[in-house]
């Protein structure tokens, strides 16, 4: 079980490659994935594709908090997406897919797209 799960994760970079409170784009199984690191060193992975702007840009947005919820603002038209759930905070009927993600020995590893 541990064995199969490890195999579905792909290592994309070291945690240090991501500045706190920023994101980077990674290519995971042909998909563009935005990987974010918050100040407390938690890591989140979302599809990089902005459903409003139709462009692969979310990793380049500003990371912040709304209330307690960490989010990224799309650099195109500023819609906020929650890092944990991918939900658009201004319109919960819109969301971006999220991915399993973990940090092992300083390596950031992306797993499957969440259901």
């Amino acid at each position: 079980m541990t064995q199969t799960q490890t195999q579905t994760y792909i290592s994309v970079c070291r945690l240090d490659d991501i500045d706190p409170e920023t994101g980077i784009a990674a290519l995971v199984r042909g998909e563009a994935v935005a990987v974010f690191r918050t100040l407390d060193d938690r890591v989140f992975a979302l599809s990089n594709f902005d459903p409003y702007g139709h462009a692969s840009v979310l990793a380049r947005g500003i990371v912040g908090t709304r209330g307690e919820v960490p989010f990224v603002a799309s650099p195109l038209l500023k819609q906020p997406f929650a890092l944990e759930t991918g939900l658009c905070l201004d319109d919960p009927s819109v969301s971006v897919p999220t991915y399993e993600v973990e940090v092992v020995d300083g390596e950031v590893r992306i797993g499957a797209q969440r259901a």
Partner: protein
Amino acid sequence: MSPHLRKKVVVVGHGMVGHRFVTAAIERGLTETHDIVVFGEEPRPAYDRVALTSFFEVGAEALSFLPSGAYEDPRVTLRTGTTVVEIDAAAQTVMLADGEEMAYDELVLATGAAPFVPPVPGAELGNVFVYRTIEDLEAIREAAKTAKAGAVIGGGLLGLEAANALHQLGVETHVVELAPRLMAVQVDDAGGATLKRHIEKLGLTVHTGVMTESISPDALADISVVDEDESGVLDGNVSALKFKDVEEPLAVDMVVFSAGIRPRDALARAAGLDLAERGGVLVDEQCRSSDPHVWAIGECAAPGGKMYGLVAPGYDMAEVVADALLGGAGTFTGADMSTKLKLLGVDVASFGDAHGTTDECLELTYSDAVTGVYKKLVISEDGTRLLGGVLVGDASAYGLLRPMVASGMALPENPEELILPQSTGGGGGIQLPPEAQICSCNNVTRGDIEAAVDNGCESAAEVTKTTKAGSTCGSCKVQVKKIVEDYFTAQGKTVDTSLCEHFSMTRAELFDVVLIHGYKTFDQIIEAHGTGRGCDLCKPAVASILASQLNGHVLAKENRKLQDTNDAYLANLQKNGSYSVVPRIPGGEITPEGLIVIGEVAKEFGLYTKITGGQRIDMFGARMEDLPAIWKRLVDAGFESGHAYGKSLRTVKSCVGSTWCRYGVQDSVGLAIMLETRYRGLRSPHKLKGGVSGCARECAEARGKDFGVIATEKGWNLYVGGNGGAIPAHAQLLAGDLTTEELVRYLDRFLMYYVRTADRLQRTSTWIDSLDGGLDRVREVVVDDVLGLGTELEAAMARHTETYFDEWKATLEDPEKLRRFVSFVNAPEIPDPNISFGSTRGQIVPDVADGPAVVGPVGLGATIPVGAPNLEESR
């Protein structure tokens, strides 16, 4: 007479009050039964005489009350350039200069007043003027072109206004006043002395207590006509003023008389109507003269024997007569003669019983010779009521004090607090009664203002729009704003000025906090003064504040997480995720070699090219990972970042100017390049644009820019607060005929003042509107330096220019910064497959499968306004 026959009202004079009468008559419905014919002697329809001096700045068109030249109501006929020369009251007819006669049923005289020119020998010489009409000002402007020194005879309100104009026209200005003080009617001795000091500090010379005995003609006239021609009238132009009991004559080449006004009552006198003892058509409380069908309003009228030299009483009279002609019973029973104005940049106000003529009244004065502030309150003997006062140097309390007099409300415990310097003019806890008249120009009470808020006005600006309060002389604006805000507070509505949920401060407050504490990072600032971890609103705002103060690199490690979309990659993000590249082309001037480099780079990297609206060239469709290589080529060829991505100086647009253009009077390209180079890289609350035109034809559209410079024969005129975009605004004159050195000094101050105090994403035009006092306030701070901030602002700008560096060059030199310019962290060699291009007219264009990005696909349930300007989104 058949009952359906329409009656005719003839109006003589189309000035401010005549015009008001016509609009009142139309609004009240008089034109349903009456035709109105208006004769105006001036060549143009009525205009705003109160704002006459701004003619030099804004031109005749902007002052006009009726730019189209005709009223929309077809039952009103306006004939300008037509003088009435005679009234036959018995026959009920008037006669025009060309002999034409016209019958009337009712005659309204609105002939105004004429400047009084004392019978001084030489008053008929050339270059002797009065100050009343647009034609007078045109002639004065013409004479000022060659005149070196000028004198204004009369140191009253209008005289000082004329002196101001001469001074602005670059003429060495003398004010000559018979009385021992300036503005003798409005202020007392101490106030007059303070005013005099202010004015002398500006470089004008004031002569009080002197009588002008004669005006001497120039030498040329002396020789040719031996002082007098056949008619006994002096000939030639003025050369000097001779004062009584003063040896030395004052050499001047032009003179403006401003020694008071006299009602134009000659028509009425000739027609046998009763006149007041001191002039003016004697009228009753309904403004009816001794002939029942002749009425008089405005400055030619003397209701109850007293004439009023202000426009507000004239407006009241116009309303009263329109009402009377409809059978109404309205009356005019006197007017508040309070005044507040700004003369040569100095606030002066006088209200109520300014000279303390009431029996046994008490006076309370505050005076500070250093700052030039003088304030006096006149209080009733028992200390309970305010009767009047004088304010010089700081008239901010006027808006509160005048209504206190008018409403007769009880004075607070410590009335001196009303005039102590810390008093803001808002008047602390003082609550005026609802019936207190706040705006005397438009007769608007506190109650009216609050009712406007109840009816949906959301801001002081909206209240001004609906009630007109504050729209005429503007002296009540502060008070209107205060009442609106207090009323909001009383209703529990808060006017939220916080930056976002993380900072409860405004940008200006945050700017000061950062400056005082010397913070260098966002983390320090949010820990000490904010909550949470910030957002897309406060982070770029803090980044901008830090950049303005420290001028560090925007991609420095600790702060790059703050940068907005474009700043984050030093390029402009396009709809498909690619970027545009804009090298700086100062003033729009570029060599053939430069053009070739741009062409080659665009060709090599397959970029779309377009000339921008800012006189430079934009290259679109660059992939993020290619930006460093593109910029390497540009930097090597000597180009710098154009900051098209930053909230910072964009371009200083130029026209070709005197170098090539046959009309140009100054080197506009040279100045534009100098200014663009000086202010490049300056981070600001919003983007900044400039323009420089080589002459008044204004080919650079400088007045559409945040700062615009227009060349004059004598130097440069500096305009500020222009804006294109969603809410266009014309830049307004800040100062005229400046040397290049003065221009740069004022611009340094202006820009730094803006950078420090504006709100986030507030362009200069809205920022100026938001300041108490608007453009006047900016002028006080920037030109008059009333806050004493001048040197500090200049030093801040000097720091900026000294520490400027090209941020693209610096980025190319730093591998740590370049690390982020990759398509995928784990696959830097693979370009983002989501970015693809089609082709149109022989160049690439983005391929965005689902159409324009702003139109959210219906299936997603997105609610994005289509086409509405997105003010948050801007680069």
